[in-house]
């Protein structure tokens, strides 16, 4: 079972190493990871997708909370949350396939951000399944290169992940 954790940390050098190091040394597997600064400049937010049963998740959360630089750990439920990844996909095209690719881009509400004679760069945002789906469809045209960010997530409604621990 996959869980998405939002981890608020002090925005200091070495903090990502502490968090990532904890995962590797306790044998927890990171499926995806994204880091960025928050509305408060001395706090960064790390979004980690981790797979494991409830016991593993409980240990992950407790061990993370032991790190001095970790301010808060919050499990973002799959329901009631907005989950997004961004991907850039470079697809090989020629005059016969360009239109079909552009149609797919349209259907997925993705964007073409670069046009070349033999390729297009497509920017797509969405949850994991949407990105997987467009990737599948584009594969027949030849994906030259693809890069995906880690997942970021936010609760729907008024609920927020706050810096005050407990």
């Amino acid at each position, binding site marked *: 079972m996959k869980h998405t954790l939002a981890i608020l*940390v*002090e925005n200091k*050098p*070495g903090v990502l*190493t*502490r968090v990532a*190091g904890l995962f590797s*040394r306790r044998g927890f597997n990171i499926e995806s990871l994204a880091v960025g600064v928050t509305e408060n400049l001395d706090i960064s937010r790390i979004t980690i997708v981790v797979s494991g049963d409830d*016991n593993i998740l*409980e*240990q992950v959360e*407790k*061990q993370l*909370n*032991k*790190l*001095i*630089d*970790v*301010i*808060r750990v919050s499990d973002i439920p799959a329901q009631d949350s907005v989950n997004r990844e961004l991907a850039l996909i470079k697809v090989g095209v020629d005059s016969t396939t360009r239109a079909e690719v552009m149609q797919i881009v349209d259907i997925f509400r993705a964007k073409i951000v670069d046009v070349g004679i033999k390729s297009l760069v497509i920017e797509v945002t969405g949850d994991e399944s949407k990105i997987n789906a467009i990737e599948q469809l584009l594969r027949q045209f030849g994906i030259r290169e693809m890069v995906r960010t880690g997942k970021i997530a936010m609760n729907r409604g008024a609920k927020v992940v706050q*810096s*005050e*621990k*407990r």
Partner: protein
Amino acid sequence: MTKPKMSGARAVIESLYCENVEVIFGYPGGTVLPLYDELYDANIRHILVRHEQAAAHAADGYARATGKAGVCLATSGPGATNLVTGIATAYMDSVPMIAITGQVPRSLIGYDAFQEANITGITLPITKHNYLVQDAKDIPNIFKEAFYIAQTGRQGPVLIDIPKDTQIDTIDFEYPAEVKLRGYKPTYTGNEQQIKKAASLIVKAEKPIFYVGGGIIFSNATEELRTLAETVMAPVTTTLMGMSAFPTAHPLSVGMLGMHGTRYANYAIQESDLIIAVGVRFDDRVTGKISAFAPNAKIIHMDIDPAEISKNVRVDIPIVGDAKNVLKSLIKYVKIEQAKTDAWIKKINEWKKEYPLTYKKDNLLRPQYVVEQISEICPDAIIVTEVGQNQMWAAQFFNYRNPRTFISSGGLGTMGYGFPASIGAKVGKPECTVIDISGDGSFQMNSQELATVVQNDIPVIVAILNNGFLGMVRQWQELFFNRRYSATCLKDSVDFVKLAEAYGALGLRATRKSEVKDVIEEAVRSERPTVIDFVVEREENVAPMVPAGAAINEILDLE
């Protein structure tokens, strides 16, 4: 008021004054020269060890004996990496320690400079927290935080890495009055509802047992433990880290549990209907085969570290908090008019009679006899141990009466720990007799510290149970590897009496039972650093023994 201007090195010393540090165990080198220059006329005792590992162990022994954070100091690179084993030892056993290391100047960090090692990276998994000083003006705040983190919550070592140039830079010194750490707020008071639930289980239990560890000692909860145990009339078993948390001779004591625990402690755990676990972590050496551990028992687990709860075993009632606080509130709620445990205590006493902790009492000099004699002659001594058979016999055959009188590397099992740790214990508690119960293998891992105890006049006694073997490994080879003693024989490798004398310490030897008492008394009387070479039976085994991976009541018949 203007803040005084001073160098970063001076600021370190001033910070240590603010934390009431009276002693540092250390070893100088290139990147700590400014610090050592300040130490030269500082009002802090510096004990020069002969290897940085010993500095870390000594700081650890000091902390365990006194309850205050121990401080060690080393230079960058090899000095810092030599501390690593000592820091890991303290981390595994939750010992408050501050390790200060020099670092190459900031402009050279990352360039593989001479004696550069990324010690904050290296110690990341073995420190509670660590710091690399990026700016000299951060020094007071970092020291304040470091001492706070090391000595609160679940205690542990904190490392501060100080680049040489930040020791020279000038700052305005002001020591902060308090720490602001939004990510660190340890829980001291247990949840009242949980405590009430625990009390109701305790009152109803017919076969309850206390299973207690280092947490009792670290939170100074021995009195509360005793009061509660006597109220409930339940047996108390301790882990290795919990030795001295409950008096060995108390009628409710069943001694140590686990791999080399008493038969009656292990039987009692397996038959109990309620385990009251305080300041323990259900280590594999304690539980044996985890799926077969205490099959009929409900478990109440109190610990200051929430991550320990339900880590290894399922727990019915978790209580996060400081052992002393939680036990105090528990005592309020546990009201027992007529103890229900008479039959249970009777059964345990029968086990005690049937399976006593013992050894062959003949005319040969056996190691257990040496420990018993030490216990008789020096009942109030602080016992420090090395690791292996000596450690188990020290746990089994000394009669502990007061907390903080058993000091041992429990979690990491560090050979070579005992002698330097005994130095720290003696420095922290000079009024106590401090005895390192040692083996000939472990002692040789840090015997160079004989120079330290002689130079600084620290009269510790090293009692070597010399069997000419790496005894515990040999025991496993005897039992599980067909007596093929691969690389475990140390016989006649060194004359320990002459070794002691070479350093200017007192060297004594006993080869017969009849000589044991005399040499111990002579060592105590001498008030000098002393090594006693007890030439004991070579193939004595530690018993009882539960093989690794077996349930803790599946005990090998070694007796």
